[in-house]
């Protein structure tokens, strides 16, 4: 049990003590163990490290820190050695003995270091990785510094000082002014200025209480920024919310997190408990008159509950269904009380703004889009992972400089931003600076920050169909045009992908997409046609080719492709063995052939062929 802090002085004394007791020079093995890290095998690494440290009697001489995700997905499970900053990617638990030994001696294991893909040179330090060079990691950079289950780690690294600063200053209106001056816009996707939202909340009558909500219902396929922040640094969210509550006069806070994120739920829960123990949350925070507490509400997995009015209903225990705005949540939210909802990343930015000062924060990024933004870079790209860059960075910089270009041989064709509600941006437009306004102009949205890279082996009709399939399941079904519209769009896309589409259907698809965008009530429905509209805008040729020539140029749509074997075939029989349905025939050392009747177009033969002898047409 931690001792409760009764004053700001008490808190500062604790922070000073934690900093002075900390010996920076003790070598530390840092293992990122977010959900992704654990899936890649971080738990085994941790176990092996603990065993090695104990068996070598190195307790106290080498520290082990288990942190949240650092965003280096491509390198998981990895090990970071402090204070040098040496990084070992893709480590097998059996290597831990050598690593612990080397750390104890202060050596570096050359053979385990990562290699530059072009030059083959070994890269020792994390900061020299090409993936990290162009990034500005004000939010993600803190994940590696702390164990999310220990509030002391957060306090030592400067945590809760922004809150103490605000409490000591004593002028709530100044907090709102700071956030306004910083130019921070909501990181959930719509980009509404956070300071203005708070100003509106502060002006609401406070007789019945006011709510602040952290929206951690991250449901986009391929996006996991919010999860990493909530898992890796939950106290930054808690601190942000306390500061927000002080500025706006909110009395209750809610972290709405999807139940599919068990680790985030656990870490947020622990963070709240520890903050309460220290007197940073609850009645009379740090001995002042300011009271604020946060509860945790777990979402049941509906994508639409990320929409703020549906989220409010879900918190109230009702069916997650959006309603008409106005009245806006800031007037009538949870239980009809004024409510301000911000995304995880927005909250994580708040302590940074207060600590650095609004001016310094506004210097990062561009004029109307300040600060950094975290993206999850996934798809057909070499370096997948979490990318944090200043607003206004171009797509090219993210895809080619940070992402390292295509994963395979195929050329990159487009990126899809903003999740299922977003759109595809073609490679010709990669010089587009990423900010809220230019993305909307290009027919996409910022969204919460998913970024899926697609290459020439990706069929855009198939992509649109995939997202529409997701949306027709996730539409709440209240608005008729959204419910039926997404189903009908899927139906037409499915026809086109199967080769039975017509040009009239294509026109109908476009007409329908515009009407769904126009008539739906909430953000989900209004953006649901984006995958269709943006692919039609930039890749109409592909649609037409599916319809006119009954051909899929990317070789993806199963109904439109045939597999055949060319004269490169040496008759090795690898494909004969691989085929699950026995469609490949041929004797050893003779050219094989594929029985088109039997072939299920799974592509296994092509995957196993070492001679590029399997064609897809």
């Amino acid at each position, binding site marked *: 049990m931690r001792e409760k802090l009764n004053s700001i002085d008490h808190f500062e004394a604790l922070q000073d003590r934690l900093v002075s007791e900390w010996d920076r020079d003790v070598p530390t093995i840092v293992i990122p163990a977010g959900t992704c890290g654990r899936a890649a095998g971080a738990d085994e690494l941790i176990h092996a490290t603990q065993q090695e440290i104990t068996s070598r009697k190195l307790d106290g001489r080498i520290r082990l820190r288990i942190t949240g995700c650092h965003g280096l997905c491509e390198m998981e499970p990895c090990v970071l050695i402090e204070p040098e900053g040496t990084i070992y990617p893709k480590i097998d638990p059996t290597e831990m003995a050598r690593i612990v030994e080397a750390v104890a001696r202060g050596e570096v294991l050359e053979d385990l270091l990562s290699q530059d893909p072009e030059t083959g040179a070994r890269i020792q330090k994390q900061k020299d990785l090409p993936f990290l060079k162009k990034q500005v990691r004000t939010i993600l950079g803190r994940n590696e510094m702390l164990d999310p289950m220990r509030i002391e780690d957060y306090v030592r690294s400067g945590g809760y000082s922004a809150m103490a600063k605000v409490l000591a200053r004593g002028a709530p209106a100044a907090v709102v002014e700071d956030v306004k001056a910083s130019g921070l816009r909501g990181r959930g996707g719509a980009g509404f200025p956070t300071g203005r939202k708070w100003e509106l909340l502060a002006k609401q009558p406070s007789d019945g209480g006011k709510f602040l909500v952290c929206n951690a219902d991250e449901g986009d396929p391929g996006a996991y920024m919010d999860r990493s922040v909530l898992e890796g640094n939950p106290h930054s969210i808690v601190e942000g919310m306390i500061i927000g509550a002080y500025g706006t006069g909110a009395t209750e806070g809610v972290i709405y997190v999807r139940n599919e994120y068990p680790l985030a739920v656990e870490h947020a829960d622990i963070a709240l408990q520890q903050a309460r123990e220290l007197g940073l949350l609850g009645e009379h925070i740090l001995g002042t008159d300011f009271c604020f507490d946060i509860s945790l509400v777990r979402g049941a997995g509906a994508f639409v509950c990320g929409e703020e009015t549906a989220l409010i209903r879900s918190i109230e225990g009702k069916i997650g269904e959006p*309603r008409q705005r*106005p009245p806006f949540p800031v007037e009538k939210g949870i239980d009809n009380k004024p409510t301000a909802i911000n995304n995880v990343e927005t909250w994580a930015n708040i302590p940074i703004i207060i600590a650095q000062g609004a001016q310094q924060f506004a210097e990062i990024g561009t004029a109307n889009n300040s600060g950094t933004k975290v993206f999850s870079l996934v798809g057909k790209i070499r370096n997948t992972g979490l990318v944090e860059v200043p607003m206004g960075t171009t797509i090219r910089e993210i895809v080619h400089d940070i992402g390292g270009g295509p994963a395979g041989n195929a050329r990159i064709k487009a990126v899809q931003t903003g999740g299922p509600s977003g759109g595809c941006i073609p490679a010709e437009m990669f010089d587009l600076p990423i900010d809220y306004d230019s993305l909307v102009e290009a027919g996409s949205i910022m969204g919460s920050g998913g970024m899926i890279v697609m290459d020439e082996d990706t069929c855009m009709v198939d992509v649109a169909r995939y997202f529409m399939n997701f949306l027709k399941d996730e539409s709440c079904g209240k*608005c*008729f045009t959204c*419910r039926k*519209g997404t189903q009908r769009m899927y139906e037409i896309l499915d026809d086109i992908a199967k080769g039975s589409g017509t040009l009239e259907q294509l026109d109908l698809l476009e007409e329908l997409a515009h009407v769904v965008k126009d008539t739906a009530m909430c953000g989900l429905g209004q953006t649901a046609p984006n995958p269709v509209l943006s692919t039609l805008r930039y890749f109409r040729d592909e649609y037409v080719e599916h319809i006119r020539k009954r051909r899929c140029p990317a070789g993806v749509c199963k109904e439109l492709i045939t597999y055949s074997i060319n004269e490169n075939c040496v008759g090795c029989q690898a494909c004969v063995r691989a085929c699950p349905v026995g469609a490949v025939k041929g004797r050893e050392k003779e050219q094989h052939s594929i029985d088109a009747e039997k072939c299920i177009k799974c592509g296994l033969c092509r995957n196993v062929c070492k001679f590029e002898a399997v064609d897809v047409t």
Partner: protein
Amino acid sequence: MPEIGLTINGLPVTVDEGTTLLEAVRFLGWPIPTLCYMDGLSPYGACRLCVVEIGEGAEARLVSSCTYPAQEGLKVRTASERVLRARRMTLELLLASCPQSKTIQDLAAAHGVRQQRFKQEYEDCILCGRCVRMCEEQMMAKAIGFRNRGENRSIGTPFDIKSDVCRLCGACMYVCPTCQLRCTYNEPERAICGACANLTPPCIDKEQFNDMMCYMSPCVACEIEKEG
């Protein structure tokens, strides 16, 4: 009550605060088609037929007039090209899914929708939720509600078991705009029984009608006939 000034189809009007756009527009005599809206029930905004255009220039957008409150200075257009295009597509979607409903057929005809270009479906319910709101708000029963989401959304009792709070009042059927809970005897393919038109339900001629009637067992129409 404080009054609000707005412009509807170019005409400046004043309405009481709290009036919805639909109420204001209808009071002033312009027609707006609706399916999910019903006097006496809370507005829901599900059918999207009542959309009107508000705002100007790049800010112009469509909103459902039944749920949107009248606001000071608002410029409303009830029959702009954009509104009509949306309305026609919505009707086409309705016609594609529920072609047997006379209400929908009439609305489509009135708006010049003569064909539908999607694959024909034969559904009855458009999930407008009138029955759900009727049951909850006027009958105080809450026997039925929405279940699931997206394409799996449906209306019914929990677990499809007859609800203890249902009083078999029939209000849900009474308010249904597409007349979906009609008697279909034991031949679901003969969806239109014609009972409402000629007042002689076809089930009367049949011998056994014990457990294949509409959910109101025994069927009220048949009971009346028998007593007579």
